[in-house]
């Protein structure tokens, strides 16, 4: 068997060992492997999807589950068609809330991580507080938030931000500390400023962690916004879920859920794309040939 490092990025899928160890020079196998597993990366989940959908549809048609609980895929599709514009308008609102919270929360988390890295005092005092803040069941305080911020987008953005900043803080802090000792010593003897250390070593070293945090929140930010809307809103996907849910319009509920899911997957995809652009060395095998 060939040597296979198993270093593969999420979303791509592991390539065949056979495809990896070949008599060809690296780009050959790389292209081929990507080609091969691109196909598989599409076909395999598609197959699973088809099986799931067919099973789901027949389950619903058999009458074994109440339509008030689980609508059939076809009914959901129909709801999409019937209720499309409404869903899209709601999705726009939620997306704005989720993304604003996403951006603000991640900036806050990263900035805090950097501050904690350089200021012992800030870490000792603010980190426990950040943890405690994160520990507050934010959804339980949403009514209070609505008192403070009104019931527009602001409280939803706040909740989203609140749930997003912590994964970034923890991951970024770990990542920024993940810099190789030898490399840090090098920069140190070069008398690099903290900012240079940050830019040249710590940030690159933190990239895998930071992107993981972004991926975690790319999905979570929509869930957060929806849950916040669900407490009190008059627009957005969360609102539609509650309203339709209270009327047992399950196909519409699921259509709203799925549109939220689809958008957060798109954001996730964007993060993966950005990662490939920002940190090409992560998706490249460390030694192209040897693996």
């Amino acid at each position, binding site marked *: 068997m060939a*040597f296979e*490092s*198993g*270093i*593969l990025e*999420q*979303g791509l*899928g*592991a390539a065949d060992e056979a495809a990896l160890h070949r008599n060809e020079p690296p780009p050959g196998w790389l292209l081929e492997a990507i080609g091969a597993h691109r196909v*598989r990366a599409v076909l*395999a*989940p598609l*197959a699973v999807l088809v099986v799931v959908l067919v099973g789901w549809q027949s389950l619903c048609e058999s009458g074994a589950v109440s339509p008030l*609980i689980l609508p059939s895929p076809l009914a959901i599709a129909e709801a999409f068609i019937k209720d499309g514009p409404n869903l899209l308008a709601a999705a726009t609102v939620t997306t704005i809330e989720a993304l604003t919270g996403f951006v603000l929360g991640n900036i806050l988390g990263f900035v805090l991580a950097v501050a904690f*890295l350089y200021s*012992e005092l800030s870490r*000792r005092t603010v980190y*426990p*507080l950040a*943890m*405690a803040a*994160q*520990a*507050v*069941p*934010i*959804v*339980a*305080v949403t*009514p209070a938030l609505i008192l*403070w911020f009104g019931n527009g987008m602001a409280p939803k953005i706040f909740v989203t931000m609140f749930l997003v900043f912590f*994964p970034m803080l*923890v*991951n970024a*802090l*770990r990542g920024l*500390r*993940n810099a190789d*000792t030898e490399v*840090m*010593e090098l920069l*140190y003897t070069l008398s690099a400023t903290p900012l240079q250390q940050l830019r040249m070593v710590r940030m690159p070293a933190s990239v*895998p*962690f930071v992107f*993981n945090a972004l991926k*975690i929140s790319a*999905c979570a930010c929509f*869930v957060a916004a929806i849950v916040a809307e669900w407490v009190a809103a008059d627009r957005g*996907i*969360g609102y539609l879920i509650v309203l339709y849910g209270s009327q047992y319009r399950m196909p519409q*509920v*699921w259509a709203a*859920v799925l549109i*939220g*899911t689809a958008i*957060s*997957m798109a954001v996730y995809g964007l993060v993966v794309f950005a990662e490939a652009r920002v940190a090409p060395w992560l998706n490249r*095998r*460390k*030694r192209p040939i040897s693996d």
Partner: protein
Amino acid sequence: MSSITVPDLAADAAGGSEPGTGPAGIPWGLVLPPVLFVVALVALWAVLSAAGLIPRYILPAPGAVLNEFTRNYAVLARHAAYTSGEAVAGFIIGNAAAVLMAIVFSYSGLLKAAFYPFALISRAIPIVAFTPLLVIVLGRGLPPVIAVVAIAVYFPAFLNMMRGLASADVDYHEMLHTLSASRWQRLKMVDLPASMPYLFAALKVSASVAFICAIVAEWIGANVGLGYLVVISGQYFKLPTLWAAIIVAAVLTLLLLALVVLAERALRRWTAAPGEI
């Protein structure tokens, strides 16, 4: 490590500088600042409340909340016990499943290709939509709440483990390769140890949301637990109870978080080299 001058290097490697421990072995450096901070915060809260700057319907005075703790501790403890059980069980189940799944995916390209997208999607679906289904399938009470927590919690560990299992230096892989190590040996000897920083970063994230998720889930489908207590005391406008429940939840979250941090330290002490990992 006092001889190291490169600032923070040793601490960095260890994942955080460990503040000095006092003579009694209590890490005062770690304990004191947050304690002082909390004390200051409570004092501020008390002063503002007394001055009437925080309306009672937003946040009751600390005295009222404190009174709630002394008067109503049995009720709080009962609900807290439920929520803790759910949160911890969900935390363990979710993270164990995540680690297992990441390992399976790192072994099988086909399984990964087939199910990876769904692992992602499952996180993107609002839990709210799941809950009626879970309540119907699992019945009311602990099981659906544990399921919600597990589902909500597994994702950070899953993502980070996918990354962590692939993070080991190629040199290590090459070495094990020439030793003709099995995949399992490679996992045990290289990939798992190398993925620990990733795992613990994820565990900290998920420890901090486990209770929140349990509370949201209770809100939807339970009649015990702190989430329920929050709802019902909100409904009956018993704000001291509500805030006492919130504080208990926060403290429990911090305890879980502290447990994760301690576990990480212990693991580092047993296995990790200074200046590495």
